[in-house]
């Protein structure tokens, strides 16, 4: 029986993708683990490995074919002893998985086992723990969309808790006027950025709060830390990530997400950090950043930024996040306002630290000051909460020793 190869779902949100290029041709012998093709999703280009042994009998879609639905037949492998006669010319279309949304009624203290969760039948069984299935049902997400981190990829509690259906943020591109131009086709990433941020600006009622933060104490602490060892180099941004994570913990009303008729309150600070990469940007996530020290945050941020620039981010690296930071300080930007990265409810736009003249106790003096702006989703966060949260960030950054508490 020939083995049919279908378009894989390489990320939980992937509905279709581009077959960037085949790395095997008809007649090639492949074994489990051989890379068959490179597939471009809306976020990254990923390698698609064979899970079977055989000979490539037929390839149905050419290099560069776009918009191939997940589940579409793309090739056939012949098993030992089979010849090409078993292959039909007209590729059977495998039923494309239908996204099934389950209506969830969450009733306090009515813990009767709910009906079996609806499984997205790509024909693949999703292994998951009973608790994960129940949490997914209560959250209204499809368990088979969630990447599993348990044994053999089993979906467990922490995967469901850490799962946010979609994310990504960026600045919108613009092309206009009569000037000479060249039209370049949008990459999948660019399309995603456009779609997500348009949606954000059109549907999320943004409001902005700005504050100036004095950095001298932080810079002293940073210098001291970095002089102690050559093994790490803590950046100002690492301090900002930690400060935001702690502030989310301190003002949990800000660690929320608007969800139609529910509000989601997070108990962990998963901080997305916008990283510019050729052709756009991605937002890898520092998970549970409130529990991580500066060193760990620094190491993780560096590793993720490198992966991002190399185009090697995995879905688990950028999925989710409960809050975002966009820092253009290193590029000399004094201050700016960022677009919220939906479905998150807030993003901090960080400008550069610079020597400024300030008044202190009635006297003119100077300090290193950084302007930041917080954009909030007013459906989820009100002005006073936003101000309290921004105040907490300011306190942490101005008195960095409080981050040790």
């Amino acid at each position: 029986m020939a083995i049919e190869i279908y378009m894989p779902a390489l990320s939980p949100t992937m509905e279709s993708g581009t077959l960037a290029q085949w790395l095997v041709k008809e007649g090639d012998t492949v074994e489990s683990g051989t890379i068959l093709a490179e597939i471009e999703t809306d976020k990254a280009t990923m390698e698609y490995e064979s899970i079977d042994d055989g000979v490539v009998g037929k390839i149905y879609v050419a290099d560069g074919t776009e918009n191939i639905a997940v589940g579409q037949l793309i090739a056939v492998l012949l098993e030992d002893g089979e010849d090409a006669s078993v292959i039909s010319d007209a590729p059977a279309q495998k039923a494309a998985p239908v996204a099934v949304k389950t209506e969830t009624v969450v009733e306090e203290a009515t813990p009767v086992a709910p009906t079996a969760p609806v499984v997205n039948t790509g024909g693949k069984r999703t292994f998951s723990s009973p608790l994960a299935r129940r949490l997914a049902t209560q959250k209204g997400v499809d368990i088979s969309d969630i990447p599993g981190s348990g044994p053999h990829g089993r979906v467990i509690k922490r995967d469901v808790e850490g799962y946010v259906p979609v994310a990504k943020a960026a600045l919108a591109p613009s092309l206009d006027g009569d000037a000479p131009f060249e039209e370049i086709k949008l990459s999948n990433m660019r399309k995603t950025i456009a779609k997500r941020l348009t949606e954000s600006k059109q549907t999320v009622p943004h409001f902005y709060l700005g504050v100036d933060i004095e950095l001298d104490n932080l810079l002293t602490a940073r210098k001291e830390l970095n002089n102690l060892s050559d093994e790490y180099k803590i950046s100002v941004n690492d301090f900002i990530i930690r400060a935001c994570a702690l502030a989310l913990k301190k003002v949990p009303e800000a660690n929320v997400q608007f969800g139609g008729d529910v509000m989601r309150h997070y108990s962990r600070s998963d901080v997305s950090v916008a990283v510019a990469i050729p052709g756009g940007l991605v937002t890898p996530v520092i998970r549970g950043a409130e529990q991580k020290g500066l060193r760990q945050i620094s190491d993780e941020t560096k590793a993720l930024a490198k992966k991002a620039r190399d185009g090697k981010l995995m879905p688990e690296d950028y999925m989710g996040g409960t809050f975002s930071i966009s820092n253009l300080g290193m590029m000399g930007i004094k201050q700016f306002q960022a677009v919220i990265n939906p479905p998150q409810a807030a993003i901090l736009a960080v400008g550069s630290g610079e020597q400024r003249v300030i008044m202190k106790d009635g006297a003119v003096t100077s300090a290193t000051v950084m302007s930041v702006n917080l954009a909030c989703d007013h459906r989820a966060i009100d002005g006073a909460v936003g101000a309290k949260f921004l105040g907490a960030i300011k306190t942490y950054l101005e008195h960095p020793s409080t981050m040790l508490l």
Partner: protein
Amino acid sequence: MTQKFDIVVLGGGPGGYVAAIRAAQLGFKTAVIERENLGGICLNWGCIPTKALLRSAEVFHNMKHAADYGLVAGDLGFDLDKVVSRSRGIAAQLSGGIGHLMKKNKITVIEGDGKLVKPGLLTVSKDGKKVADVQATDIILATGARARELPHLKADGKLVWTYRHALTPNVMPKRLLVIGSGAIGIEFASFYNELGANVTVVEMLDRVMPVEDAEISAFAEKSFKKQGLNIMTSASVTKLDKKKNTVVCTVEGKDGKAQTIEVDRVIVAIGITGNVENIGLEENGIKVDRGHIVADEWGHTGVKGIHAIGDLTGPPWLAHNASHEGVIVIEKIARDRGNKDIKDLHPIDKGNIPGCTYCRPQVASVGMTEQAAKDKGHKIRVGRFPFMGNGKAIALGEAEGLVKTVFDAKTGELLGAHMVGAEVTEMIQGYVIARTLETTEAELMHTVFAHPTLSEMMHESVLDAYGKALHF
């Protein structure tokens, strides 16, 4: 002479020797440095020898109650030396067994005191004389912990004992004071009480076994008192005045009122402190906080190639925690060095580590207490089932006990399970598996429990949390 290894483990206790076995299995050239006996405190001076003593006490208890079962036992008594030597024999047998395991896995055992010179290098000395230099890319510190001492409660081995002395008594004290009602203190209290000593337990906090669920503590305390133990909670021993063959202890209550108690022996069981001294920590920049090494979730100390596991890194001070951490730290090293077979590796989930105390009645638990669950903001459902309602318990003559379960009302997650009564230390594993597999109340309800067993109470307790208990 410098010996070279891939991995060297400092300390041959349940953390260290298990780490060494796992390392050898993964193809690393491995050595263990041990200053005393393989198997560490657990096997030589802790878990195992105390279980041997407590078994003697249990059999003795049953003999005393022979008549309840229609049996006749005349001339009851015990030979303390033989009770102790049975316990020591079992420890020796098992320690020898670890030696065989080391040999079987081709692990080099180096006897002596190991000390970190710098990352990648240890020196081993015996009786103050250097016996070897040992090189290894990765070093696992697993030196364990010892009884905590306070200046005014110092053990002398004669009148004032630590667990070590209490394991090898040469006389049976008529009157005994136990300071601390954690697992160690209460097990010894149980043992000596069973063999006829008049035992007083002093606990600083307001209940015995304060880490357990409050309801379980209260249940156990009531049972201890019924057995004749004197329990003094919210009290502390402020002074030990040693006479020739007795100790006059000053015990101060919360109200500041002091009283004196004269006893023959005192056991100090006021906690544990890590063996962090003289192993080269400060020199190498390894952080120590309140007597324990600071390590991350993977056991890494922050200094390249130096890891720490088990009691040395802080609570829970449990052998099974140390062993599990030992396996994880080795597998992490293997994975970091490119071993593709290591999959599904995760740091230990401290919420899923069971705790067992082998006093009579036994106490066992896993996960959050009712109070902890409430403090964490969970809306909860609590199930209880008493041993009185279980056929097997009554047939055994062990009708005293309680199985308590705590569920999250919204998600059905089993947040914690707490048991007191006969054999609960064997039963707790069922709930630990349930937690590890993340079952909800539904799967536990659907599980068929064999009849007649004590384990049926685990089912009934879950049912009770949802108002469906059948036999009570």
